[in-house]
């Protein structure tokens, strides 16, 4: 499997940071996922063999972390926080709006593969609630109108 040069460089660097190879697993999986889109069978085998782990070891870890996925996602992963601080300021309305607008539910993907929708737990934007994270970008102090602007801007 081929990853970007940046990935390979970081991978080699990180191996030197710990007494055990296994320690690089969690961040490596996330960076690999960012490049491939999801953790495919081939990717899991590749990482397992690089770190001298069994495939089961790697899958055990994948199933624990909520950001890791073995299923393909849309180009933009729209993560709407509905936890307490966002809920008090309209997070649930934003989530309902996204469901209607995109026509998909929790962890659903639009047929054209542009958007995946996810209701997520606290993303650490409580003082700027309600907040939505699209891939890694934070969008804060949102209203339905502002969110529409963000989503419509991405669609183009």
């Amino acid at each position: 499997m081929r990853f970007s040069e940046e990935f390979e460089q970081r991978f080699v660097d990180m191996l030197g940071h710990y007494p055990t190879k296994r320690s690089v697993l969690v961040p490596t999986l996330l960076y690999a996922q960012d490049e491939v889109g999801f953790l495919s069978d081939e990717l899991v085998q590749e990482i397992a063999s690089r770190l001298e782990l069994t495939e089961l070891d790697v899958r055990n870890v994948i199933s624990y972390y909520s950001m890791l996925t073995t299923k393909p996602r849309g180009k933009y992963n729209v993560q709407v926080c509905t936890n307490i601080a966002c809920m008090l300021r309209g997070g649930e309305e934003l989530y309902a709006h996204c469901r209607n607008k995109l026509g998909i539910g929790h962890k659903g993907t639009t047929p054209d593969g542009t958007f995946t929708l996810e209701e997520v737990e606290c993303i650490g934007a409580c003082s700027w609630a309600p907040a939505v994270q699209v891939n890694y970008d934070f969008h804060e102090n949102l209203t339905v109108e502002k969110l529409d602007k963000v989503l419509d801007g991405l669609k183009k």
Partner: protein
Amino acid sequence: MIEYLKTGWRSIESLGSNNTITQFLNFPIPQFSMADLVSHPDEVKVVSRRFGQGATNIDRYLELDGYKAVQKALAMEPDAIINEVKNSGLRGRGGAGFSTGMKWSFVPKQSAKPKYVLCNGDESEPGTCKDRLIFEHDPHAVIEGVMIAALAVGSQTGYIYIRGEYRYLSVIMQKAIKDAYARGFLGKNIFGSGKDLDIFWHGGAGAYEVGEESALMESLEGKRGIPRIRPPFPAVVGLWGGPTVINNAETLASVPHIMLGGADWYSKIGTPKNGGTRLFCLSGNLEKPGVYELPMGYNLKKMIYDVGGGIPNGRELKAVVPGGSSTPVLLPEEIDVPMDFDSLMKAGSMLGSGGVVVLDDTNCIVKFALRTIKFYQHESCGWCIPCREGTDWLKKTLTRFHAGGGLKKDIDNIQYLSENMLGRTFCPLGDAAAMPTIAFVKKFREEFEAHLEGKPCPFEEEGAVEELPVLAH
């Protein structure tokens, strides 16, 4: 040491708009939206003093007294550093509030295995968004804090763990570490002292549970974030079996200021046994939510009505969650209380991670309790049965309750179930789910009763909640 507080610092307002930080950056950084900074005259800026001043740039950081504290620490005996931190009254900002100096003193002087310092930046407690600002505006302060902790306990390796969602902060932190190496502040023979010290970045991938110290170590070792039984405590047996100091990012970012300003100065800012300042994250139904740095012991009522600007739209205060979602709720008549660890403990709650969530009177407590427990049910790692099953049953019961399908005996059952989770798990996640739930039931029993016998939620418009059938008695 008041001069230390005032000299050479520009106030955030003098920089104009909040997004001016980029003008100091001399490296390409992905575009991201900066969280808004706020300000209030009562603030005492210690940890936040470099916010908005471009201190992500190492030259700028050096101009703002950067890396002076670690040089001071290098000239001190390890025990003297620990004593200084002990005397400052600094207590863990992650939530437990344990004395930082005391924690460091538990690390054995001699160890066959390498010792480690681990900075916990897996901030995920609902209501808390302070570490994010520290990494965003002052990453070198965290590095310096880790360095001083490493000198104090005799460690040569530190790790800074940042949650996976904070990707842009990982970029900032990796760049900051690289810059520190390039200047020779990290690596071999730091500042010509003959001492070696390495600090590395580590990233998570989405897990609240990993913010717990032993699960954090498991995650850093490349495993599922499942807590370890204690004793042995991490200070004796931690990462890869070596003694490990684990501190919250805000705790470590406070340390360089203590070294420069002195323990005496720092301890006097707060209340007895609660030294210094704290980043309080005000959120919820407030006029001016934001992260404010206030002295320990600042009055909660004043924090809500003065600093936070009060409740918008002419509504009344209904309840306050004072320290992140895991802390028991306070009623409006209970909020005239100083915000420090001991005073809140006396008031029957906890200072926790400093996330103050304010609810106005349009909110349904049953719904709020349900959303809180949904979070803990989702985040329970499933290792300890009381937490795994308890959170799941609480979620089921509260879901049915909120939909109008509750029975009178459920109210007592919710409380009984929660009380039986307390203290019966490896890590405090079980307690974190149970404590607020008990408080919701005890303090808002009549509101739970108003949901009984198929009545729709009194706070929702008709038909907003999917109605569930009432169970047979």
